[in-house]
């Protein structure tokens, strides 16, 4: 019997792995020292745990432990990378390159930097959500100091050509940052092979706790320097002051370790379940469209638009299954997903999209239940949809002058 509700929103956040929680617990009540206390056993224990965690994180992305800077999460990591690099290297140049489908934690800091006088090129993407190396090459100027391109997209799962972008940046002597929160722990990420100079990751996307993340900052070839956002005790090589959140750091390390060990089988499992879900739904329903790249995407992610049915309305119908939608019915702007819009998906189909994120704890029963429920509800809502009725009657919906607002 399937256990309800079913969680299929693993691109949003993940359940903390019980093994991770178990590893964290002693650091709340037994080894509660301050990792910066050099003078007693409590501090040493905490520092030891922090260093062990740094090692586990470094191992997952092929970095060295001292290149890992702890932050509160990927939003902070992204802010630190962008603003830290921009401010540190402003004598060298003022130009940054990024893409339209980046997370707001990239786009908003970029906007702030623009207000400060930096110039930002936001590259468009193709129909699958990808940027090309050629686009980046063409956008590079003498004053370009940083390229920031995500490894995998949070909504559509599309993977970017990170290795080629890394090589290009290296050859031009430009720093390369990648927001890799969705990719780390799910697919192989290697900062050396990919030529990444700065990389953002977070624990809660990989079955770790919320509130902790890290920024990888390359130390050699080149040695990357950052101006800090938060000053205080000079922790984390002065790049991020603040008492280290030891239990959370232990959790992040444990989460990285488990993900590294499970990755080969887990990525296969989530891929298989995702394909079962996608084909199960799309083979039974007409007028459905896959958003994002068919192959170059995260193993557990699929994103489907259901024509003539509004996403939020559909989510209400499948309320026993937790997913998310590109519909922005709840937001004040009424604007649907900017990521889907960037792909050229029409606003009506963006409103009709659902994102499914398959994760570690999902079972085949979850998927089969979801397929049946989604198919049933889409059919029910289509019978209720004036758009479906008109389309069936052969009316071109684009020919109608809808009332705009």
């Amino acid at each position: 019997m399937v256990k309800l509700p079913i969680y299929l929103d693993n691109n949003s956040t993940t359940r903390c792995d019980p093994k991770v929680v178990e590893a964290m617990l002693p650091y709340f009540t037994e080894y509660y020292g301050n990792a910066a206390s050099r003078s007693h056993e409590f501090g040493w224990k905490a520092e030891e745990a922090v260093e062990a965690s740094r090692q586990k994180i470094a191992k997952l992305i092929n970095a060295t432990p001292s290149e890992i800077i702890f932050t509160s999460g990927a939003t902070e990591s992204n802010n630190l990378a962008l603003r830290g690099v921009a401010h540190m290297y402003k004598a060298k140049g003022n130009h940054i390159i990024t893409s339209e489908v980046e997370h707001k934690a990239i786009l908003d800091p970029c906007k702030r930097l623009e207000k400060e006088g930096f110039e930002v090129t936001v590259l468009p993407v193709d129909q699958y959500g990808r940027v090309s190396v050629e686009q980046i090459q063409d956008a590079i100027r003498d004053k370009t100091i940083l390229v920031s391109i995500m490894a995998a997209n949070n909504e559509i799962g599309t993977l970017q050509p990170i290795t080629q972008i890394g090589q290009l940046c290296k050859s031009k002597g430009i720093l390369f940052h990648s927001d890799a929160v969705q990719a780390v722990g799910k697919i192989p990420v290697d900062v050396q092979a990919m030529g990444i100079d700065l990389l953002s990751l977070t624990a809660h996307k990989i079955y770790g706790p919320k509130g902790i993340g890290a920024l990888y900052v390359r130390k050699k070839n080149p040695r990357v320097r950052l101006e800090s956002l938060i000053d205080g005790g000079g922790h984390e090589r002065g790049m991020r002051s603040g008492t280290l959140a030891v239990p959370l750091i232990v959790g992040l390390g444990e989460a990285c370790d488990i993900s590294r060990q499970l990755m080969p089988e887990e990525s296969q499992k989530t891929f298989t379940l995702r394909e079962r879900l996608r084909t199960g739904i799309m083979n039974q329903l007409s007028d459905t469209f896959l958003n994002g790249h068919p192959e170059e995407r995260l193993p557990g992610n699929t994103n489907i638009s259901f024509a003539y049915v509004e996403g939020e309305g559909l989510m209400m119908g499948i309320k026993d299954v937790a997913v998310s939608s590109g519909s922005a019915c709840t937001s004040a702007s009424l604007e649907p997903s900017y990521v889907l819009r960037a792909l050229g998906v029409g606003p009506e189909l963006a409103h009709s999209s659902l994102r499914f994120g398959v994760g570690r704890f999902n079972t085949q029963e979850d998927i089969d239940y979801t397929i049946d429920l989604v198919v049933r509800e889409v059919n029910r809502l289509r019978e209720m949809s004036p758009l479906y009725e008109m389309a069936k009657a052969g009316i071109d919906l684009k020919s109608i002058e809808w009332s705009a607002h």
Partner: protein
Amino acid sequence: MPYSDKILEHYNNPRNVGSLDQNASEVGTGLVGAPECGDVMKLQILVNPETGVIEDARFKTFGCGSAIASSSLATEWLKGKTIDEAMDIKNTQIVEELALPPVKVHCSVLAEDAIKAAIKNYQDKNVEKGSSQVASNNSNYQSTSAEVLVVH
């Protein structure tokens, strides 16, 4: 979740889903909203020309649960009312009845617009009977009868 039991009840058991013959003279059709905004409501009324009483009402809605519930409720309220009484239905009454959260108030506005559009369509058809039709457009759908209102 900011959804009341009443919204869920209408969403799960919507009243009066369906379509009436939009070419019939006693039927008024209102089509409001736009697919790109994520909400489209089609609301139809069947009016007794003798008494001016709305004898039947149907809807089809593309939208969130609150939009579906608002239109379902609107059809329930319309049945048995005269045209004049129907004109008095306010979006705020729908907000109150369904306990719509502030971000969903626009759904009730759309429902009120749909009611008014359906009534206007009925009146246009019957006042100008035999004369010109509703401004014909490049679509069959509209040129037959549906009145498309500008909302917001």
